[in-house]
Structure formats: C-alpha cells, structure tokens
C-alpha cells in the first residue's frame, strides 16, 4: 500500500510538472516534422536557376 502511494505521488508530481510553465521540456521537443534536407539527394540546378544568397 505504501509503495502504491509512492508511485501515485510520483505520477502526480510528474503530471503537475507537465502542467507548470517552469517544467517545460526542451523548446524544440515539439518539432515533430522531419528535417527538410534529410532525404534529399544531389540536385542539378543546370546553371539556370538562382539559389539566392546575400546580393
């Protein structure tokens, strides 16, 4: 019974933490989309397409 209470207390603490702003996870933890370049292979620009940059 005492062990169960300890587990419940731990779960309550974790749940409360999740609700409090002071316990936020890493700010990037919510980025759940793949990196845009991850699966790209070589791209031929054919010398005719501008790819930007500081002008």
């Amino acid at each position, binding site marked *: 019974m005492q062990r169960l209470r300890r587990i419940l207390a731990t779960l*309550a*603490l974790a749940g*409360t*933490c999740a609700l*409090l*702003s*002071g*316990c*936020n*996870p*890493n*700010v*990037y*933890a*919510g*980025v*759940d*989309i*793949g*990196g*845009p*370049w*991850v*699966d*790209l*292979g*070589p*791209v*031929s*620009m054919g*010398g005719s*397409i*501008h*790819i*930007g*940059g*500081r*002008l």
Partner: protein
Amino acid sequence: MTSKILKTGAAAVAAALIVAACASTSIRLPPITSMPSGENRYGVFVWHDLLTTDPDAAKRFYGGLFDWTFEDFAVGRGGSYTVIYHGDKPIGGIVDARQFDSGVNVSQWIPVLSVADVDAAVATTLAAGGETFADPVDIEGRGRMAVIGDPQGAVMTLLRSASGDPRYDDLAVGGFIWNEVWTGNIPGALDFYSRLADYNTSRTSIREGETYHYLSQATVPVAGVLQNPVPGLRPSWVSYVGVRDVDETLARVENLGGRIIVDTVETAGTSDAAAIVDPSGAGLMLQTWPLK
C-alpha cells in the same frame, strides 16, 4: 477545526514542494550574448540553432569546415546544449534531437528571430494560418521563446532575449551572413513576414525573368524571399555561411561526413553559392564572402 487547519497546511506544503521540485528541474539555456548587450535588434536573425541526431558528428563537421568551436552546457532535466563559437563570438547552438524521440529525423538548422513581443508574434502567426511547435515560454537564461511554422510550413524560432541581442558586427568568413525563406507562395510569405516583424518589402531583378525579394527594416535588407528552387524540398528557412572559396570548402565536405546537394552556382554575378547537408542531414548554404 485543528484537523482542518493541519490538512490545509499539509496541502499547502505539498503544493510548495511540487512547485519547488518542478522549478529545480526546469530547462535553462545559456544566453545568446557573452555579456549583456543592453541592445535589442528586433526583426533581425540573431542566432541559429541546429537540431541534430548526431551532435558529435556535427561538431567534427562544422569544426573542420568553418573552424567553429563548441562549449557544452547542462541545461537541466539531464539535457545538454552546445554553444557554437565563431572566434570568441557565440553564434548558435546545437540541440541533441535524440532526446525528443519523435520517430523522425528532425535534423535541421532553425534561424532565431529577435522580436519585441513573442506572444503577439505567435498570435499573428496563428491568425495567418501558421502553427506553433512550441508555445511561448520563458526559458531561464535565454528569454521568452516560441517555435513556429509559417503559413507555408517554414520553421523558425522567435526570441525576446533576456541578455539583449548581439551587437551589429561586420559579417565575417565562417559566420552566418544571410537568411532566406524558400517558399511556393511569395506573395503570401511577403505579406506574412511584413506583419510578423513589421518589414518593408522590396525587390530586385537578378537576371532576366527572375526577381529577388527582400524583407527590410527601413531600406536595410534583413532577409530574402525566394521561390523554392530545389525540387522535393518543403518550404524552409535556409541560412548562409560565408566562406572565402565555395569550391575549396565543398572539397572538404564529404571527407567530413557531409554531402553536397547543390554544387557551386554563381549568384547574380556577385558570388558563388552551394547547398550542403551535414552528417545528420541538416541543410546549410555556403556563399562566397566578401562578395566579388
């Protein structure tokens, strides 16, 4: 009565303990300036964070390519964050994305825009059809932050820095020299970012039939907007690092574990540029600096 007071007191103590425990496990991040700058440069990209599934490989890659150096920080809750230095100047951070367990490789560079009011900028984003990956939150040491996707899906971070923003510095080889959003909807992007950071917009012809769009503060360009030129790439912010010689830098990319996505392309007669990815798949642009 006494019993009720004791119970109430016990509940208050328990609540205080929970809050204290949470506070002690909160996330903190190092500031973006070595010393408080006392200066804010709203509307300017002031930092760049790299999400990577392989921080050690990233350090070897960028250290070998740009001579960057690194300093690890414990940030709480068992996490770590690495500050990137160009010379003695902090310019960005490395986030170990393995801790997120999101099931996808999220490796990417995310530019950080200084804004006066993070909450207002997020409200503008949501009203325009964008999204938040992290709602506004105060991060000890760093400031108030949020991570957003613009209405086309390009990801960026908003920050009101607790230490102020880095003072203007001459752009240098090995530093970030430019940021650009690659989008399939130029009018939409110009409209959104004008409202997000009060930019003016302007354009210049770069060659016959092609136009380059600027996001500017008064008449000073801050960032670019470009029709997405790379097939298969979703709308994204891309960041440029200045190098003396693009070809020479590219020659070292693969030995350091990276890949070349777009080989050297001349940019409007002023420089060369190329696109690379690091060992974990985060993309970055190289551009000749100074311009010809």
